[in-house]
């Protein structure tokens, strides 16, 4: 018996695609002792998930292990047959996945699936089986196990599905659990309970855990050792405290710097211009507007009903000129509904929206595109990939509001204005002829921002503008947004689920839960002394690391 539970040596994985071979993993070596926890972190495309699937040999048809060895206990998994692998999966190695609801069979009850998982490896009597199944549900702390057994995945919440998934994974008491982004898509508070559960089960059952994540905070909180991957290669492996305290590899340093923490400021995000942006020829365009006494926007008693369901319940707030207000809440809190009411894409049920002294809440959303205020209130949407018309070039995307709202017709004038916008967001003018699928995530985000500021709005609504971006790109975009705000005197209404991000960009934060405002305070106050239990819970749930503290310990 070797001292390691799992030892991966010089692993290579290739994918055969229509454009030839892609080497997704290039010489990865990892080691995990029994009962230990290893985090593999990296941004999208780093090969972290491919590594995990290679270990369990669950790569899809196109993927193939082309070199290296995977020693599990005494056997080499690379040369194991399908049947040998099948017998290992479950009792020796098992996995939990991102999007647990999709990972469960939609037309089989949780109970049936648990029985399937058990009976694949063990012969048990009916009663023993039933007993085991109930034990498992108790172990993952699912209340009302009798009901859960009879439920189908669609009848359970995301968090409950992930617990059921964990129950399946531990059903045959594996020695190694691989968790592939297990909490992506879950709310922070759910995320914390799920991860705490995994950690507790691992300790109780002496399971080794490999946690695959893009979230450095998560890895820092739950892993003893962390391997950082970039483009198919492990660039650095170190104990968590050491890795965050004194990262050695330049990529790790950049990644650690770019991850927002409870104390970092935008300047801490340490992003150099060369990491993503293009040096631009921009000049100062406008001086910040002088702040007026009256608020730029006042929302009063906003209420929104969706066929019997109240999504937003009498919410009031205002935004001063040049001010940046953050709106934070978990999914279903009504924050996106509010951002759409304020941006006049949907109608409120009750209440008023006053913009610069004009009541714009009563203009129907279907007519608002013709209003003079359309150009003054603009939006940057979530997921830059989704928010660009796939058949428009970057140029067309930016020119769209100019043509519609500024009624630009002349070709030369349009070109001049579009290029000016591109420069304001440091977007390379040479890329303007490209279609969205030919641009990187960061570039698409810039186009989305350029489009929103093209008509020189006074209020910019930001709807989770960085949620779909890798941390290093997120840092760049956040800095860009902050600079635009200072230089152009914009007001921001920043909607996000990520308190750390909001804190860096906003002076004031509104916390929402189930359609109501829970707390409103200046960012400093909110973090220093949260007034409500809910805010405290939110703050505690944020998986974060503090490099300064890590440095002291390390």
């Amino acid at each position, binding site marked *: 018996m070797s001292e390691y539970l799992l030892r991966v040596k010089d692993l290579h994985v290739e994918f055969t695609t229509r454009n030839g071979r892609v080497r997704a993993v290039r010489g990865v070596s990892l080691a995990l002792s029994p009962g230990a926890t290893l985090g593999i972190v990296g941004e999208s495309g780093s090969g972290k998930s491919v590594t995990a699937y290679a270990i369990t040999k669950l790569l899809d048809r196109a993927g193939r292990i082309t070199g290296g060895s995977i020693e599990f206990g005494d056997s080499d998994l690379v040369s194991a047959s399908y049947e040998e692998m099948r017998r*290992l999966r479950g*009792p020796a190695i098992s996995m939990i996945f991102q999007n647990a609801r999709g990972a469960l069979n939609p*037309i089989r009850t949780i109970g049936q699936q648990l029985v399937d998982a058990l009976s*694949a490896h063990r012969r048990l009597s009916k009663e023993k089986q039933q007993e085991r199944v109930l034990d498992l549900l108790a172990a993952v702390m699912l209340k009302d196990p009798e009901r859960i057994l009879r439920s189908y995945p669609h009848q359970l919440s995301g968090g409950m599905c992930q617990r059921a998934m964990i129950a399946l994974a531990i059903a*045959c008491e594996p020695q190694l659990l691989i968790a592939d982004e297990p909490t992506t898509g879950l709310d922070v508070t759910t995320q914390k309970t799920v991860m705490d559960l995994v950690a507790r089960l691992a300790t109780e059952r002496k399971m080794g855990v490999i946690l695959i994540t893009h979230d450095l905070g998560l890895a820092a909180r739950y892993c003893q050792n962390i391997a950082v991957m970039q483009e198919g290669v492990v660039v650095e492996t170190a104990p968590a405290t050491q890795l965050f305290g004194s990262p050695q590899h330049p990529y790790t340093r950049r990644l650690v710097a770019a991850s927002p923490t409870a104390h970092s400021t935008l300047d801490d995000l340490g992003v150099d211009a060369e990491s993503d942006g293009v040096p631009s020829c921009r000049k100062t365009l406008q001086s910040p507007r002088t702040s007026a006494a009256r608020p730029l926007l006042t929302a009063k008693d906003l209420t929104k009903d969706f066929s019997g369901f109240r999504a937003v319940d009498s919410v009031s707030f205002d935004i001063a000129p040049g001010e940046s207000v953050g709106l934070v809440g978990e999914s279903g809190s009504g924050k996106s509904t509010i951002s759409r009411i304020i941006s006049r894409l949907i109608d409120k049920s009750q209440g008023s929206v006053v913009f610069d002294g004009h009541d714009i809440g009563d203009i129907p959303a279907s007519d608002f595109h013709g209003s003079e205020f359309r150009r003054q209130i603009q939006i940057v949407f979530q997921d830059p990939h989704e928010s660009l018309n796939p058949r428009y070039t970057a140029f067309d995307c930016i020119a769209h509001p100019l043509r519609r709202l500024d009624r630009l017709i002349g070709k030369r004038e349009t070109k001049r204005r579009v290029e000016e916008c591109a420069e304001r967001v440091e977007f390379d003018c040479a890329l303007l002829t490209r279609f969205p699928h030919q641009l990187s995530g960061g570039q698409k985000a810039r186009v989305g921002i350029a489009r929103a500021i093209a008509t020189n709005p006074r209020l910019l609504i930001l709807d989770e503008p960085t949620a779909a971006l890798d941390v290093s790109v997120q840092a760049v975009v956040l800095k860009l947004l902050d600079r635009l705000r200072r230089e152009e005197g914009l007001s921001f209404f920043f909607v996000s689920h990520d308190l750390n991000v909001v804190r860096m960009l906003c002076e004031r934060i509104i916390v929402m839960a189930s359609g109501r405002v829970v707390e409103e305070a200046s960012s400093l106050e909110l973090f220093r002394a949260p007034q409500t239990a809910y805010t405290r819970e939110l703050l505690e749930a944020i998986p974060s690391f503090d490099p300064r503290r890590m440095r002291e310990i390390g």
Partner: protein
Amino acid sequence: MRAVITIAHHTARRFLASIPALLGVLVFTFLMMRVLPGDPAVFFASDPNAGPEEIEQMRKTLGLDRPLPVQMAYYFRDIATGNLGRSMTTGQPVVTDLAERLPASLELTVTALVLALSLALPLGVLAALYPGTLLDHAVRFVCSLGVCVPTFVSGLVLIYVFYVILGIAPDPTGRLGAFDAPPPGITGLLLVDFLIVGDFESWRSALSQLILPASTMALFVLAPLARMTRASMLAVLGSDFIRTAHSLGLSRRKVIITYGLRNALLPVITITGVVFSTMLGANVLVEKVFAWPGVGSYALDALLASDYAPVQGFVLLMASVFVLVNLTVDTLYGIADPRVTIE
């Protein structure tokens, strides 16, 4: 028990939802009858040479002098009492004609559907399990070919090959061999009736009459069924829960059948319903080619003879069959997929 109640509830709801559709068809046929050339009063007058007074009298008895809504009410009353009028060509009430001929059409359609499904499902599944292989390409080729040949051509080709050249198929005229006596009409389905009577000789003869038209029909619907099975099986095999099943070490059989196939069959159920009603329509062509005495050829003959009461009856019959088929499909779907009830 709870599940049964849910499904019953679901079925009842779907039935109620299909009532507007049925009403729509009723109104459609009513209007169609008014638009069609020809004066019903002339048809129903006792004597083709009846004078204008008699026709006027007839018009009164038929209620044709009343306003349209009143006429529609009469029409609905007639239909509710099962009075669909009389066919000019056969001289019999339309209901009697349809009842006589519906079993022939059903026997043909159901046999063809069973034949098509029993080929399409295994082929589609196999093609999905081994995508990109020779087998996959062969299935796709047969399917693309099958959907390109119109039924009236493939039927004639089958007749030419198996009757004219090889001489192994019987004379392509009707459901019964030339020397077979029809069985007592119990269900009207020959294969069933001969079995009940125990006349196996005639049973074999009826079967041999059925094989060519049923194959023609089956060939035509094989493609959409096999394609759908393949696509749906491929999609399911690529989904996350199949990966989960593998990650738990379930046996390959369990993964493919219990986790894969059962999920993949869900869209196939829906498409089978659509295919069945397409077949009811395409039946007209096959019945004409094989001189099959079904409702389709009956309606076609009536249509060509400007005899509209049978056409109306046929359309109503098709609509009712369609509602029944849809209801069956919905119920099956409700049993197979626990998610539908929440919609």
